């Protein structure tokens, strides 16, 4: 048998390898975050949140239309995605023998892995082509395509964590199955389901690609979903590839605001799950 010291040494060596690996993986992320914060914070000011973009070459202006647009587009997208995502999650978790499931599960997984730009294309064909114009609604639909499989997956897994005996207790009272699911099982998994909704929102809010030919972008503030609408990732992209120094600074500021929104959503999600499923 090997000596105790040798085994301790081996243990420390493996721990060291794991720690180095973790640092290497996290380093680029930390650098990007740090760089964005350093560059972005200095460019954040009141105008950034209250004003619209200025014409090229003019200094100043802000991203109010993009901030509002991102909130409206992701919010609407969430409203569209919620019933489908939760419904699919319920079907997968509660009716494992349903005939739809062998199709639904791979479909949901594929949709989850499908490039976001293709989802934009789908929304383009469905809404922009038929309505004849770019619109916030088409952007929201593209966002919903991103959210549905994420919501379905998280809903399915948290429903499966709800103890079986809760369903039996409900059924033994003479309640129909759908009643048991909606009134007893879903509330027991509430924290996890809400977390799934928030994570899906955070994920979708950062996407630019699906909005390029749907929401399209707009320098004017609008709440009308039939109009083209601005969004932070879109404005960030447009400003980052522009030749203007001032726009570059604003792009960094947009990155900080976007990160802030996503971090807040994720924190909210964690808060909802504390001590629960």
């Amino acid at each position, binding site marked *: 048998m090997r000596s105790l010291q040798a085994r301790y040494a081996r243990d420390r060596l493996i721990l060291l390898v794991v720690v180095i690996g973790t640092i290497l993986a996290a380093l680029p992320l930390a650098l990007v975050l740090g760089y964005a914060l350093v560059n972005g914070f200095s460019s954040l000011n009141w105008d950034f949140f209250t004003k619209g973009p200025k014409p090229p070459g003019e200094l100043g202006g802000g991203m109010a239309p993009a901030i509002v647009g991102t909130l409206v587009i992701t919010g609407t997208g969430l409203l569209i995605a919620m019933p489908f995502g939760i419904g699919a999650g319920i079907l997968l978790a509660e009716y494992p023998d349903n005939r739809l499931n062998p199709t639904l599960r791979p479909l949901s997984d594929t949709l989850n892995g499908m490039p976001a730009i293709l989802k934009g294309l789908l929304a383009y064909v469905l809404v922009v082509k038929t309505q004849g114009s770019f619109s916030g609604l088409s952007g929201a639909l593209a966002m919903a395509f991103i959210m549905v499989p994420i919501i379905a997956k998280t809903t399915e897994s948290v429903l499966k964590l709800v103890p079986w005996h809760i369903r039996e207790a409900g059924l033994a009272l003479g309640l*129909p199955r759908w009643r048991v699911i909606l*009134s007893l099982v879903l509330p*027991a998994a509430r924290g996890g389901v809400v977390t799934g909704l928030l994570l899906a929102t955070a994920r979708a809010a950062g996407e630019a690609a699906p909005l390029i030919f749907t929401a399209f972008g707009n320098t004017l503030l609008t709440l009308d979903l039939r109009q083209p609408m601005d969004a932070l990732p879109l404005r960030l992209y447009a400003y980052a590839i522009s030749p203007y120094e001032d726009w570059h600074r604003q792009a960094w500021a947009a990155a900080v605001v976007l990160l802030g929104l996503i971090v807040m959503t994720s924190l909210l999600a964690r808060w909802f799950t504390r001590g629960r499923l």
Partner: protein
Amino acid sequence: MSEFEASANPQTGHTEILTLDPSLKTRLEARRVTVMYGQKAGVKDVDMPIYTHKVTALIGPSGCGKTTFLRALNRMHDLTPSARVTGEVLLDGVNVYAPGVDPVEVRRKIGMVFQKPNPFPTLSIYGNVVAGLRLVGIRKKSLLDEAVERALTQAALWDEVKDRLHAPSMSLSGGQQQRLCIARALAVEPEVLLMDEPTSALDPISTQSIEDLLTELKNHVTIVIVTHNMQQAGRVSDFTGFFLNGDLVEFGPTNLLFTTPKDKRTEAYITGRFG
């Protein structure tokens, strides 16, 4: 000695009850009930009467099929895709497995209490008791209040919780939770109450309180109780069925089955030679 007499039919091996008490009525009757899990039989060809306003105990060693049989009575096996039930279960003469019979209706008439207390964790004490009523559309507060007091009183829990009806159900002790589950089952006024080892997760004092309850409860509802505790069967039941390897070996009035068992295997079990 007893108002009942039991004897085994030599042809079928099934036990028949010769009643000397004409007031005895059959609420539930199992006829050749077989439960298959895949190719394996959990329960084979069981015939058994369940008498109105009596407590019937199902005893036998672990894995003998007593719980499997119990769950066949209110169609709980419907939820297990691999389980298949054949035979008939007559509730007041109507086969609950007949085509067109809604299992949801069956379970409203045949309630169930489980081995581990399982109150709905998201609901209050009050919410648990009225769950069965509220979720089928009874909303009138006076009706619900009445049902809560009645059910909790029947379950001998009212005095302990009447001042905190809206407290979370999980704030109760294990024994109280189990009585809450009994109250929840009673609130929908079932005709039969199935109890699957309702005291096996409880301490002796809680067990005692639930046993005391059964004697009172049988005036309102017909009870079938699965227990692995023979003393319990002896204390609470009027009739007892002894299961072994999926067969109903013997069925009869509890006092007869425990004092003069007809079958050697029953005798071996109740005298503690196996089990």
